[in-house]
């Protein structure tokens, strides 16, 4: 005898129809043709994104802020009336309220980046590099935190931040000093959705929220953010070199009950494929964090990265444009004139490894500076030949938004 439960199970598991190969292929042809036809019938003209238009106007910004929040709520209420959705109240609560009783968070991520390079750098061809992040919520806006990968670490002890680029380069910063770029809002895990909503307002990204059942059988809130590369990419040198400089999809899952972030995956959209560049591999809440993690012991031979100071002949250097500065910088390397070198490379001393690397180079060419993305400085194309005969062709990043108002090297070596 079949019981009622057996009948239910039998229908759930065993009632199954399959398309024949012929039907599968025939229907697929129709479906793909419909997609092609739809693409062709759309206007060829590229319409400016409504979000961008709205955000250009200061008058509409405030209204847009409200509209975005309401739109999220409405989307979840009216989309697919017959399937489970999130209530407007729930969305707004999630968007505006910090997670209560949060004492600490530990997040482990994998990012396609370079271990020694800045935290914001990504590369679609790079291997995944593990990153670890700790934050203690101590009631202050900044809290105490640490972000670390094998090549560099940043620590905020509640009053100031300290960056160590291993083995021996360090920089001191304040409460709001950068160093970690896009990872900082992620570390503020209690406000991560709030940050995304603000970004949606500022940058015109699209934010959608779904209620779903996770693999563990628990109710999840899934937030997907479609974001667009920020900045001018007439020259695309910076495109896809950071998350904010890429068209990307960020998919967060939150536990629907606790509102705690559980997973994040970030995919960069390129012409050919979608490449995952960041994923959370572990996240733990309210675990004890060893207080010593919020302090850094610096090596004895530490070399400090400094803000450029005014020089006795500062005006001479102020008058140099990006290209002239690049030429002068590489000439100092070629001449092994380290007193001159340090005027363009603001550190407390010149590392011997840097002297070995750049000393005696031959300048092959220095090109015209260009802008890319949102970088406040310039990129200067160069080609140099090292003493060992190898040739390097790159773009030197230079900027002068410093108190001395002269161009210095910011990257690209």
């Amino acid at each position, binding site marked *: *005898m*079949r*019981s*009622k439960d057996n*009948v*239910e199970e*039998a*229908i*759930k598991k*065993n*009632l*199954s*129809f*399959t*398309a*024949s190969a*012929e*039907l*599968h292929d025939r*229907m*697929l042809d*129709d*479906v*793909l043709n*419909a*997609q092609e*036809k*739809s*693409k062709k019938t*759309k206007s060829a003209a590229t319409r400016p994104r409504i979000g961008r238009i709205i955000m250009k106007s200061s008058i509409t910004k405030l209204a847009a802020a409200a509209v975005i929040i309401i739109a999220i709520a409405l*989307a*979840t209420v009216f*989309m*697919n*009336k*017959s*399937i*489970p*959705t999130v209530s407007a109240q729930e969305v707004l609560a999630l968007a505006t309220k910090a997670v209560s009783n949060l004492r600490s968070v530990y997040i482990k991520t994998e990012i396609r980046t370079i271990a020694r390079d800045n935290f914001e750098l990504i590369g679609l061809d790079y291997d995944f590099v593990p990153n670890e992040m700790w934050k203690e919520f101590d009631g202050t806006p900044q809290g105490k935190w640490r972000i670390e990968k094998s090549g560099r670490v940043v620590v905020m002890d509640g009053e100031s931040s300290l960056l160590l680029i291993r083995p021996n380069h360090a920089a001191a910063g304040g409460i709001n000093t950068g160093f970690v770029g896009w990872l900082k809002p992620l570390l503020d895990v209690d406000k991560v959705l709030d940050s995304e909503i603000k970004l949606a307002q500022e940058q015109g990204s699209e934010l*959608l*929220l*779904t*209620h*779903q059942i*996770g*693999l563990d059988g628990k109710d*999840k809130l*899934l937030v*997907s953010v*479609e974001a667009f590369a920020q900045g001018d990419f007439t020259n695309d040198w910076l495109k896809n070199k950071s998350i904010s400089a890429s068209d990307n*999809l960020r*998919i967060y*899952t939150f536990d629907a009950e606790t509102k705690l972030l559980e*997973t994040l*995956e970030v*995919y960069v*959209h390129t012409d050919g494929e*979608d490449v995952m560049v960041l994923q959370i591999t572990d996240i733990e809440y309210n675990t004890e964090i060893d207080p010593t993690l919020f302090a850094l012991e610096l090596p004895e031979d530490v070399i400090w990265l400094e803000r450029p100071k005014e020089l006795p002949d500062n005006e001479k250097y102020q008058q140099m444009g990006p290209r002239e500065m690049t030429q002068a910088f590489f000439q100092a390397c070629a001449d092994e004139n380290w007193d001159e070198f340090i005027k363009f490379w603001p550190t407390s001393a010149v590392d011997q490894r840097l002297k070995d690397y750049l000393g005696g180079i031959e300048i092959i060419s220095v090109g015209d500076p260009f802008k890319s993305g949102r970088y406040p400085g310039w990129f200067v194309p160069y080609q140099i030949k090292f003493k060992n005969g190898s040739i390097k062709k790159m773009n030197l990043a230079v900027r002068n938004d410093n108190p001395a108002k002269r161009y210095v090297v910011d990257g690209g070596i």
Partner: protein
Amino acid sequence: MIEDELLKWRFKRGSKDALQRIYEKYLNHLLTLAMALLNDAGRAEDVVHDVFVSFAGSAKDFKLGGNLKSYLTTCVINRARDQIRANRRGPMQLETAESVSSNLNGPDQAIVCSEESQRLNCAIAQLPDEQRQVIALRLKGELTFSQIAKLHNVSINTIQGRYRYGLNKLRSVLNGEVEK
């Protein structure tokens, strides 16, 4: 779950591969649901075909915040119900149902199934239309009783009653088969 979000995103940007993946991922689920609701291979095929073709043409305007599977399921349910309403033949009679189901696995059939599936579908086909729909929506459409009640514009108690009676009848039909 995350794969679907990525598929939606890529589909919206016109990816052919994403559309094909969505099609292949949900084709049989949707066919099964359509068959359970309509018990007619031709009409089930039409419904699923129309849903996918319509979906394929909607990429640019696609603003789906919900679950992709639920969305496609809802589309199939709506179209199948339209078909049922348009075709006042109502639920198939026993003889017709048996003949349709028994012909499913012929050499030229577009939709194929196992013997057990065929037997179950044949049993479902013998239910009154209202009970059949509730059983199909609940067990193959994965809708809650509350959602089915809204869809049919009746109380949740009515839906639960139809479901209970439907299951009882199915059990009788299937056990009767065993006893034959």
